[in-house]
């Protein structure tokens, strides 16, 4: 069981559109553009795709099949876990590949998060937020910033986590984005800039919050024996999803600060057969600065309560012990719901990270986080 998906699948192709605040394409247009790039990057033709997992908000699998003219899809599904969806979709893809159902699964996300429905409206329409909507919207708890801020506040009160540590994360993401040609935020940011940005939902300031972006990102997950012919396959060593207690509501959770990732991470590391010290580069879902701290703890890079101190001193910057979000993350590259994190990990492990390349990166990790606390994590390695 522990190593059930280790080495069964590899990411063979990646594709992304331009990320922006005003795309001239529809969501399905962005998805198709990214998908075609990923298919060609994998050295495949559209007809080779036999599985499709689109993001759970937006155009459905049938539209992808119609758009790309896929005529032999044997599996389609969604993994409706908000920002945890893309990495959870990798597990779903690897599982159907290991079961022999598919050879090449397209995982794709495209949306107009800036130009069309903004986040507060989006989540109110999502079935997984039904309980939140009924009980918490009427009293004014509406947006993720408001729902997650109490987690950060309690962490600060109990462990002394502070806004300088939040700023370190925001500034690091910005520095990394400035090395990325496909990043939206290119203006330098200082700690003082962070502290001067307006309060959104205390303790979250504007620069603690992710962007709202337009764009599309896709990856191709292929069976290991089919991946050998591709240009630069990256093997999935371990992958897992986890759900916090009381997943449908944050407030009813016994511990607000321990999330689904804490359940997924031990399974992924055991499956991968690697240790934390083996991780050369990490892409951590950063919808808010605090979430990076929480996830580093839930992943086991440090103990609960120590995440604030962990990010100090440049540890998560390029050149540090755990270079994190080398693309700039949701905070400064773009909010493609973490599909851009998957893309970036593959880019790094291929050695194609450009100015943000982590020297000698061989093994890396990517997380997803969403829907109030669901978590997902994949550990990958460049195929030998």
């Amino acid at each position, binding site marked *: 069981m522990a190593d059930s998906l280790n080495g069964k699948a590899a990411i063979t192709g990646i594709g992304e559109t331009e990320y922006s605040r005003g795309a001239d394409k529809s969501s399905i247009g962005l998805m198709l553009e990214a998908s075609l790039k990923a298919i060609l990057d994998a050295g495949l033709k559209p007809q080779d795709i036999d599985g499709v997992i689109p993001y759970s908000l937006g155009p459905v699998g049938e539209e992808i099949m119609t758009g790309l003219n896929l005529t032999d899809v044997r599996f389609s599904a969604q993994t409706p876990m908000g920002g945890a969806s893309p990495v959870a979709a990798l597990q779903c893809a690897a599982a159907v590949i290991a079961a022999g159902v598919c050879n090449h699964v397209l995982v794709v996300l495209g949306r107009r998060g800036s130009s069309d429905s903004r986040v507060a409206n989006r989540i109110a329409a999502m079935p997984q937020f039904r309980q939140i909507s009924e009980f918490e919207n009427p009293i*004014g708890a509406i947006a993720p910033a408001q729902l997650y801020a109490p987690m950060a506040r309690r962490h600060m009160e109990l462990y002394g986590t502070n806004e300088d540590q939040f700023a370190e994360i925001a500034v690091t993401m910005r520095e990394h984005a400035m090395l990325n040609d496909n990043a939206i935020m290119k203006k330098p940011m200082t700690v003082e800039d962070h502290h001067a940005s307006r309060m959104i939902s205390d303790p979250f300031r504007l620069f603690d919050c992710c962007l709202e972006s337009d764009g599309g990102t896709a990856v191709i997950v292929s069976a290991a024996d089919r991946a050998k012919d591709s240009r630069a396959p990256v093997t999935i060593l371990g992958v897992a999803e986890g759900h916090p207690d009381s997943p449908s509501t944050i407030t009813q959770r016994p511990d607000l600060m321990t999330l689904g990732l804490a359940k997924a991470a031990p399974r992924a590391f055991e499956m991968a057969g690697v240790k934390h010290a083996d991780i050369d580069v990490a892409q951590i879902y950063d919808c808010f600065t605090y979430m990076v701290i929480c996830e580093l703890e839930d992943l086991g890079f440090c103990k609960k309560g120590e995440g604030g101190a962990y990010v100090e001193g440049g540890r998560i910057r390029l050149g540090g012990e755990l270079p994190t979000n080398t693309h700039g993350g949701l905070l400064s590259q773009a909010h493609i719901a973490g599909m851009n994190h998957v893309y970036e990990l593959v880019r790094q492990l291929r050695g194609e990270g450009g100015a943000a390349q982590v020297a000698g990166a061989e093994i890396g990790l990517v997380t997803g986080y969403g829907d109030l606390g669901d978590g997902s994590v994949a550990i990958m390695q460049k195929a030998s």
Partner: protein
Amino acid sequence: MSDPYLKPLPEPSIDSLPYWEGLKDRRVMLQRCSDCRTVRHYPRPMCGECHSMEVDWIEASGKGRVYSWTVAHHPFHIGFKAETPYILATVDLEEGVRIQSQLLDVDPADMKIGLAVEVIFGQATDDLVLPYFRVAK
């Protein structure tokens, strides 16, 4: 003519209707499992402890302590624009469940984990009463 009510309205379900009806009588009603007597919230059809679907409704004391909070500055919904900034508190009720609502008339600088609070009620519309909190007297 009163101003239109712009805030989101709840859509009660079979499971939650007694909660919303209780609020009209200015009572916070909680589900308690008829079999193992575990109290739960938000309302839902099955006891997570013993999986019984039999339920009694009990009235909460309305007293609790702050578990965490946020001060909402940015209005994500037009209905709340006039009242920002407001405090959203997550409160541990004496009955052992949590409830989230606005904590009124408190300086954010005085907020702390464990702050003793009590429920008060606000008439939102003719058909809707919402629970809020204030610092316990």
